């Protein structure tokens, strides 16, 4: 007879206009690792927020260790031994590790004063006990993301958590950090008898770490399975509601002439510091060059310089044989470059403009859309936008609604549809599927591969290594604005790539030259 740690009993949660959780009944066993998977917006995080007391369910009850929750607040949840590591860390950057860990249960001197010595002592003891080594006096804002996550876990443990909820914990981690995190999870489960609920949408992680898996779709719990009894492909199908064919994408054609070439490019970041250091690369027609780098290593600045959004301090950029360094974005687009930017909300779309306008922008001056006195021909615009809307399988309330009303995945499809529609010789793509669900990822990847096969030169930058591996013909690793190695996807393992992404340089002679040709 297994002990039940948490039981959801017909739980529903309704936000104005959205049924985020629909009649969910689920039991989590004590001492298991339970993975919760689902597309974006499936209601995984909402369900866990209910358990952590951040919202009160509209209907139904939650039972923790056989007791019904009567009060929904983080405080009550903490008292019942529930800890949560949020997707966006709940840490105060200017505080020390110890201050963050002990927050709300601070050790005191004379009942009134904060006892920092005891706080650091306790934090140190805890970090040794669980093998989560981190300096208690370090300032959190100066720590790497992986270490910050450790602080979050320590915080939950300090508060006496017996059940730990991890909300997409690996989204920000390198492969090495993910491996470390998983070994910590295994350890707390085995040695301390803890229960772990893991929210993720990376299916191989489900297979790697969990005992059971719950699949959510559109607010409903579709199925609960023993992890050992399902394959990744079956999970993907359950998540999306139809078979997902993670097939090898078809590649055809040979790389052609050089379309994009950067030489000794140096770019500064917003603070005036060198973000890209004398970097050289070249990109040929009909190939995808992937950039693998941990965020903040100059990849954003590099792409901004190539697309004219940021000035270059020195070096040259050639696009289809034309000098493009320090040209305006408009001039660069005219040379034959389209760009899918990394942050679709900030630079990819205008949220308040309609879907049609967002699909059109960039070709709005074309004669077929233009009438007398600059009047825009609404009917031909609508026809054009409808075409793209259908071709790219964008799902939403039509082309007339504001772009901001679309879900993240469909909004991304709008950006992809527009930029692909220019049919430019060069396409620069950044984070094409960030925060996008499995079904849309599949579709977008197919579009990118089709472009490659048509002979477009594609530069791809993504924080998702799987994506870089799946799409790229060549991969370069970037660390602190310098290329640390060049590889082909079938000759290197992901873990090994992580090694180069953290600053280790490829030793073999000629590796660097290979990039510059």
């Amino acid at each position: 007879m297994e002990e039940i740690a948490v039981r959801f009993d017909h739980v529903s949660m309704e936000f104005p206009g959205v049924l985020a959780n629909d009649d969910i009944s689920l039991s989590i066993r004590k001492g298991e690792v339970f993975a919760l998977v689902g597309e974006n917006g499936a209601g995984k995080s909402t369900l866990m927020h209910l358990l952590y007391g951040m919202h009160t369910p509209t209907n139904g009850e939650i039972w923790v260790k056989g007791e019904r929750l009567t009060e929904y607040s983080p405080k009550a949840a903490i008292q019942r031994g529930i800890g949560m590591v949020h997707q966006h860390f709940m840490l105060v950057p200017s505080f020390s590790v110890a201050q963050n860990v002990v927050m709300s249960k601070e050790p005191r001197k004379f009942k009134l004063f904060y006892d920092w010595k005891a706080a650091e002592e306790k934090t140190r003891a805890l970090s040794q006990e669980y093998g989560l080594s981190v300096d208690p006096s370090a300032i959190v804002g100066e720590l790497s993301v992986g270490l910050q996550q450790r602080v979050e876990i320590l915080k939950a443990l300090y508060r006496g958590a017996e059940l730990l909820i991890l909300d997409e914990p690996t989204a920000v981690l390198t492969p090495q950090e993910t491996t470390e995190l998983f070994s910590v999870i295994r350890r707390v489960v085995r040695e301390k008898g803890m229960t772990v609920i893991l929210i993720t949408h990376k299916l191989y992680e489900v297979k790697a770490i969990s005992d059971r898996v719950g699949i959510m779709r559109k607010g409903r719990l579709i199925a609960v399975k023993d992890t050992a009894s399902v394959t990744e492909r079956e999970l993907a199908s359950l998540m999306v509601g139809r078979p997902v064919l993670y097939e090898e994408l078809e590649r055809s054609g040979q790389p052609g002439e050089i379309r994009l070439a950067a030489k000794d490019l140096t770019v500064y970041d917003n603070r005036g510091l060198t973000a890209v250091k004398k970097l050289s690369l070249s990109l040929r027609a009909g190939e995808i060059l992937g950039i693998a780098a941990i965020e903040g290593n100059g990849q954003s600045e590099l792409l901004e310089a190539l697309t004219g959004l940021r000035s270059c301090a020195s070096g040259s950029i050639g696009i289809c044989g034309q000098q493009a360094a320090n040209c305006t974005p408009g001039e660069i687009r005219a040379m034959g470059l389209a760009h899918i930017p990394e942050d679709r909300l900030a630079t990819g779309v205008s949220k308040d403009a309609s879907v049609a306008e967002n699909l059109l922008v960039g070709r709005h001056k074309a004669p077929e859309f233009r009438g007398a006195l600059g009047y825009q021909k609404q009917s031909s615009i609508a026809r054009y936008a409808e075409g793209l809307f259908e071709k790219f399988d964008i799902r939403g309330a039509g082309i007339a609604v504001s772009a901001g009303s679309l879900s993240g995945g469909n909004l991304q499809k709008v950006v992809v549809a527009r930029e692909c529609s220019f049919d430019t010789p060069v396409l620069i793509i950044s984070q094409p599927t960030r925060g996008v669900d499995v079904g849309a990822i599949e579709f977008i990847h197919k579009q990118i591969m089709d472009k490659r096969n048509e002979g477009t030169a594609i530069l791809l930058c993504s924080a998702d290594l799987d994506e870089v591996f799946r799409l790229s013909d060549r991969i370069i690793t970037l660390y602190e604005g310098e290329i640390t190695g060049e590889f082909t996807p079938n000759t290197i393992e992901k873990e090994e790539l992580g090694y180069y992404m953290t600053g280790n340089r490829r030793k073999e002679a000629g590796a660097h030259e290979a990039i510059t040709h």
Partner: protein
Amino acid sequence: MHDLLSRIFSAATLNETLRTATPVALAAIGGAMTEHAGIMNIGMDGMILMGAFFGAYGSFLLGGGWLGLGLAVAIGILVGLLFALFVVKLKADEFIIGCALNTFAIGLTGFLSDSVFGYNGGKGMAALPKLRLSFLDHIPFLGKGLQGLSVLFYITLLLVLVLWLFVYRTPYGLHLRAAGEKPETLRTAGISPEKMKWIASILCGITCAIAGVYLSLGDLEGNFAKNMSNSRGYVAFACVIFGSANPAKAYLAALMFGFFGALGTCLQAYISPDLTAAIPYIITIIMMVYVVLRSQRRRRLSHRKEQVA
């Protein structure tokens, strides 16, 4: 020239510095609380003005300086609650509410002053005592500089210490700072960040009220003049920023402001008083420019440190 220097570095200048700095310092340490709680509080000037009027009115009505202080503090708490009601509870824009509070205070105290004291303002209310400490007579220079200061000067020093301990040495101070820097962190720890913001607003209301009372009953002999806060709330805000919201540093910043105010008085014999009166405000602008440059440099330094590590 020698004459001018001896005039600047005199016990009288020290005395004047401390007297000018005290109301600004009082408001600034309260502003440090709201600043830590993540509220941009530009309503301090109105809070001071309310304190000045209700201190004078309380003294007039109840016949005692301390009673005046009591009424002003009570009203200060109410003003802090009102400010928090709009800013924290109703989530209105704090800048707008601050402006509104300042305008409201000018109107209300002006109207009430006319009604109660008549058009020439209030005079001759019972003031708060000024301390003449006999042991100070035996200390050269310093003794003379410190002699005869309002009892509120000493209360200010005490408050600076208490608030400094509160912010940096108690768990509540940690919560206050977390409420300003990352409120969600506090919420997920089971503590309401809104509660900390309410507390900060009330504390600010109290210290600003005392600052106002200092103007009407502390420094002057029981006197209220319309708009007597005279933009000290804005200078206090500058001191908060300059002192990184640290009560002790904000006090030092206020002292600097006080010194330049006193300097202006010394220079009156040489330059037009209209120009000398502008000195503290010019200093405030220079202070702000320095703050911006400092934060830019810090950002750069912290980045370098990351690169080394």
